[in-house]
């Protein structure tokens, strides 16, 4: 096959899909991209067998046909060519020639028919949602996903769809993040899927234009998100997500209201004394006053005090400071509410008066 395309038209889609190409592959074909030109257009496909990304290119069609081409090399070539360059791609059985002006690369290619494409999709539910809403659902929760946990079903993001709402939930067993939006869908029965960590991260990268409408389609084993000029498909984690409702604490209880920015600054200062191993800080919540304390094995101490709105009994609770900062970074409001019972129970953190995003953090015993 043969095609000619402006560098700018190729570079962006390449950058969007390159994340699916693993640096260490188990199969040679996975380091390649599939370029497919047919009557529906010109597409680029990248996959790691779990996540598949397909970009549709804006270009005039050359002759139809399929070819594969080393992905990172093509991207690097594309990047290093000058602006406005016109790129010619000419592919025969074993070789692909990429040329532009006086530059010419002969790259090895593999048979297009060996390129693995996810094709056993059975998508039975679909929801149309704005890119901004989807991005927000992911951004507000994805940070709490587990990483390489033995409980494999925690290494991903729960997406829950019902007739009235769409929800995302992530937890690593120590903390939990939940975000929901009200959204009418055609789904009559609650549907839960778990998108693996890598898929979540790749999808998040693709969501850049808040106003676009995207289609999210769910099947038994896959999720497919269709954006303008882009299609994201990921396998799902086959497992049951924990019953997150059970760990959401009651919204009643000792409520402390505080300024988010001040709290964040106080925690950031105190965390100067924490390190890779010691991330614990102590919160002392007293009458309209919060004291943040940190100390490390070298017996150094930090103490920071701020005014808050609280009239309850005195509480002294330890937390992993990173978990608290993650939550504060995800919350958008100026004021946050921390609802907590005692030093051994989980704390609920929300934006004041808003429950769309809820964060549960388990304390630390210091």
């Amino acid at each position: 096959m043969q095609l000619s395309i402006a560098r700018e038209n190729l570079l962006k889609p390449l950058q969007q899909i390159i994340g699916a190409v693993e640096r260490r592959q188990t199969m040679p074909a996975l380091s390649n991209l599939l370029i497919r030109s047919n009557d529906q257009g010109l597409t680029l496909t990248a996959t790691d067998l779990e996540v598949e990304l397909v970009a549709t290119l804006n270009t005039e069609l050359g002759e139809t046909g399929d070819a594969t081409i080393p992905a990172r090399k093509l991207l690097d070539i594309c990047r290093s060519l000058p602006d406005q360059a016109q790129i010619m791609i000419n592919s025969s059985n074993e070789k692909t020639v990429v040329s532009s002006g006086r530059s010419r690369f002969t790259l090895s290619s593999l048979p297009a028919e060996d390129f693995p494409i996810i094709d056993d999709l059975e998508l039975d539910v679909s929801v149309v949602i704005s890119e901004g809403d989807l991005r927000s659902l992911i951004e507000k929760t994805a940070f709490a996903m587990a990483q390489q946990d033995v409980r494999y079903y925690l290494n991903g993001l729960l997406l829950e769809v019902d007739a009235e709402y769409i929800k995302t939930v992530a937890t690593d067993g120590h903390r939990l993040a939940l975000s929901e939006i009200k959204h009418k869908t055609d789904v009559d029965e609650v549907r839960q899927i778990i998108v693996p960590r890598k898929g979540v991260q790749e999808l998040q990268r693709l969501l850049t234009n808040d106003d676009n409408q995207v289609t999210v389609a769910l099947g038994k084993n896959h999720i497919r998100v269709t954006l303008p000029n882009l299609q994201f498909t990921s396998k799902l984690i086959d497992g049951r997500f924990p019953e997150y409702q059970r760990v959401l604490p009651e919204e009643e209880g000792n409520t402390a209201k505080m300024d988010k920015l001040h709290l964040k600054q106080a925690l950031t200062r105190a965390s100067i004394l924490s390190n890779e191993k010691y991330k614990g800080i102590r919160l002392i919540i007293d009458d309209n006053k919060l004291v943040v304390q940190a100390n490390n094995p070298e017996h150094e101490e930090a103490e920071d005090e701020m005014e808050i709105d609280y009239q309850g009994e005195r509480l002294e609770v330890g937390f992993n400071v990173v978990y608290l900062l993650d939550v504060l970074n995800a919350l958008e409001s100026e004021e946050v509410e921390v609802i907590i019972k005692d030093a051994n129970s989980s704390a609920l953190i929300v934006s004041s008066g808003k429950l769309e995003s809820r964060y549960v953090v388990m304390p630390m015993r210091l």
Partner: protein
Amino acid sequence: MRQIIHIDMDAFYASVEQRDFPQYRNKPVVVGGDPAIRGVVATCSYEARTFGIHSAMACSQALRLCSQAIFVRPRFEVYRQISQQIRDIMFSYTDVVEPLSLDEAYLDVTQCNRTFGSPTLIAKAIQKDIQFKTGLTASAGISYNKFLAKIASDLDKPNGLTLITEKQGPNFVQQLPIGKFYGIGPATQEKMQCMGIYTGDDLLAWSLDELKPLFGKASLYYYNAARGLDDREVESHRQRKSIGSEKTFDEDLKDPKEMLEKLHQLAAEVWQEMQQKEVTARTITVKVKFDDFVQVTRAKTVSRNINEVVEITVHLQELLHKAEIEGRRVRLLGVTVSNLDMLNSVKKEQQLFLL
């Protein structure tokens, strides 16, 4: 400027055997396993080395190279006692001694050369003390960091002493073949040679930013080594960095199921030792040596400390699979955990569970 001495006993185990058994003297002696049941060479005497025998070689191969070689089983208890004698000698010169194994150690004598004289004189005195008290010889390397001191001790073996001064350091490293760098094994050597790096001088041409994507964490060490720099301290209270167990089988394994079973047994041993030492770990490594002696390791780092044996065993199958064992014969398997942490320091901060 620091003054570091690296002391390395000459053919330690074999020399001990020759010392204790006069009939072995001036003969090729191989300390190690039984050549009949595929043991490996731990150490061999200099006489044996002239036949091409070296440590880690299969004893059966050693026997082929030299039919008159005397094979003896190691007597670790004896070696340990002698090693302690040697350490006592070193500690009489400085407190900053970092033993690397039974037969080698680093000493930082920066502080003590005023009392005893130059580092060269100290090294000579230590060699003399060792020979007097144990009847064995050691080689010494002296330089301004660990990297160069270790290379220096190897330059004039046995019973040698080599000094690499600050002035000579950079030039010395430049002409050094890349495989002689401490920490650059055969795999890295090959990778570097593919990049056109054969000597320290070649390595010098690479910037840190260029090395980073290729060698990750190790790149800073390589970058500095090429410049004769190494700021690692001599750690007199060295903590264990890993706990491992491995086994060479009497017969090669072919069945992946059986291999997995053996790995489980090894993991259980490792776990037992972890509990004894009251440590936890975050990295699990599986080592596989094939019948052609090609060895691969596959490792995985988990996000939280290992608290149960299943947190090791659950990863074994995946790691074994990654070592591409299908259809191959395996002679040795090992399991190691690293990224260690003391349990009591972890206990101090205890994250409570939500789920």
